[in-house]
């Protein structure tokens, strides 16, 4: 079971180039908004037609520009969970599920079975707008599974929900998808959501897809600044490679990376939680003045200006617990350290 996608699509000024392959797995499509995630899903489902390329699902060609194949959405067998669920407002929940059952002789039995499985039996005769957000999502998923798809596309499945509901539904959705044998594309801009649910990830940046990597690899070595941003890294500086070290002109200092720095590395990323208070004796010590302290929900965000930095240089952001910060006698200057392996080298 695999979904192979290699497509190009021009939409006004925006151009999309996406290439990846998903097996029977949950593959995250991670990207900032407007990077082409939804367009990619719509091309796979057949709602939009790519300009060129090839889409294949379990050996079935869904689209091929060279062979002039473009199956209509009805024949693609691809389930699509829309952001707002797209339940038919004029039908009850039961009717919404029933219309998707393709085998008419088993329609009633399968509908009731799905309603039971998704705990919708009690609300089966209500209209979608009478349901809560969670019930709507369950109804939409039941409807998708009723059509017996060979692949499922999830378009930002939790964008319509508040954070508490989101957490609960995420667990439910994962349970549902566990029983599904086929590729699932999980589109999101939330790295945490991707990390919790998917093992592999394809980053989409400005309409271009990057090679599929494991979630761990994305966080350990994102490769590009946009991938690093999506993984949650917040500090970026321009660098010059220098053997095993990098020179940071903005901060007027040099840091050890503990490994040869590739000559095409132009930026470095440092995650806020990898910036630690120096105890003395570390390799990379950065004496700083404290520019600003922000009180966050569970900790402090401290913005630091390295001593040699110019006035316009980017500040170094660190996050630490309130206790640790409050225990400091000196809150105006601070020497921090970053372990060499925690410096991300980016193209």
């Amino acid at each position: 079971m695999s979904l192979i996608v290699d497509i190009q699509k021009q939409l006004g000024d925006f151009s999309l180039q996406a290439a990846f392959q998903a097996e029977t797995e949950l593959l995250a499509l991670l990207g900032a908004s407007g990077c082409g995630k939804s367009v990619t899903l719509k091309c796979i489902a057949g709602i939009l037609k790519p300009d060129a390329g090839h889409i294949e699902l379990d050996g079935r060609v869904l689209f091929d520009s060279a062979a002039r194949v473009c199956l209509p959405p009805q024949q693609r067998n691809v389930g699509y969970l829309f952001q707002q669920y797209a339940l038919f407002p004029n039908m009850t929940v039961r009717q919404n599920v029933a219309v998707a059952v393709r085998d008419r002789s088993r329609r009633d039995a399968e509908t009731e079975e799905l309603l039971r499985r998704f705990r919708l039996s009690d609300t089966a005769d209500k209209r979608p707008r009478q349901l809560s957000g969670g019930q709507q999502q369950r109804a939409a998923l039941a409807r998708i599974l009723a059509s017996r798809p060979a692949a499922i596309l999830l378009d930002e499945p939790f964008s319509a929900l508040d954070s508490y509901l989101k957490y609960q539904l995420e667990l439910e959705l994962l349970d549902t998808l566990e029983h599904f044998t086929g590729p699932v594309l999980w589109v999101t801009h939330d790295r945490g959501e991707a990390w919790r649910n998917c093992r592999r990830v394809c980053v989409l940046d400005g309409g271009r897809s990057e090679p599929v990597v494991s979630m761990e690899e994305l966080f350990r070595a994102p490769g590009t600044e946009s991938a690093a941003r999506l993984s949650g890294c917040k500090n970026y500086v321009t660098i010059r490679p220098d053997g095993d070290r990098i020179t940071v002109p903005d901060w007027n200092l040099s840091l050890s990376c503990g490994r040869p720095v590739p000559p095409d590395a132009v930026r470095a990323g440092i995650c806020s939680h990898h910036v630690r208070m120096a105890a003395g004796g570390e390799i990379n010590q950065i004496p700083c003045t404290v520019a600003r302290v922000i009180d966050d929900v569970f900790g402090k965000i401290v913005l630091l200006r390295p001593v040699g930095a110019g006035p316009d240089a980017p500040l170094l952001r660190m996050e630490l617990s309130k206790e640790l910060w409050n225990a400091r006698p000196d809150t105006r200057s601070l020497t921090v350290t970053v372990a060499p392996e925690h410096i991300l080298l980016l193209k």
Partner: protein
Amino acid sequence: MDWYPLYNSLRIAAISTVAVFFLGLFFAYYIARLPRLLKGALDVLLTLPLVLPPTVVGWLLLLLLGPRHPLGAWAMNVFGIRLVMTWWSAVFATIAVSFPLMYRTARGAFESFDSTLADAGRTLGLSNSYIFWRIRMPYCRQGILAGMVLAFARALGEYGATSMVAGYTPGKTATISTTVYQLWRTNDDAGALRWVLVNIAISAVFLLSINLLESRERRTRRGGAPA
């Protein structure tokens, strides 16, 4: 009192409303997908009868359907029927004049349709005609009903084009509007007044139902915008 004009007016309006319902839906649905330039041109052409004087529409229809003109001559030769000066000739006139009302309201209703519902239906394997009649039409029901009521009311009140294409023959092509004109012309003010009152009553009922439909539509839109 001879009620033939009422009967004739109602059947002409009813037949043309049915025709305009399908024509209006067809054009509203397909023109929305055309390239922009063609869409603009067709839109002007199809809305023109709404703003043209009915006599101009009537004259253009005679140019097409008259016995010495292409379509009229063809119908005469092949079927031996005259397309003008019969009671159903008026249907051509009322269709031409009321079509833009149906077309425009249906188009407005279709434009408010949430197209992801159609996309969802297609990915679930539903046929395009099922999506049109069972999802799109129920969603746009109020707007389309309002368009039909408007088209019916316009057809019922049509005078100019009808009098040119169907004329006035008592008991044959007479409608309420042509009868009122005829009675006034022959100084039968009492007779004219009776038909005027009948006409006002019918129109009032229709306008009331339009208002009801519109306020209901506003309420459903506000109350529960379909997700």
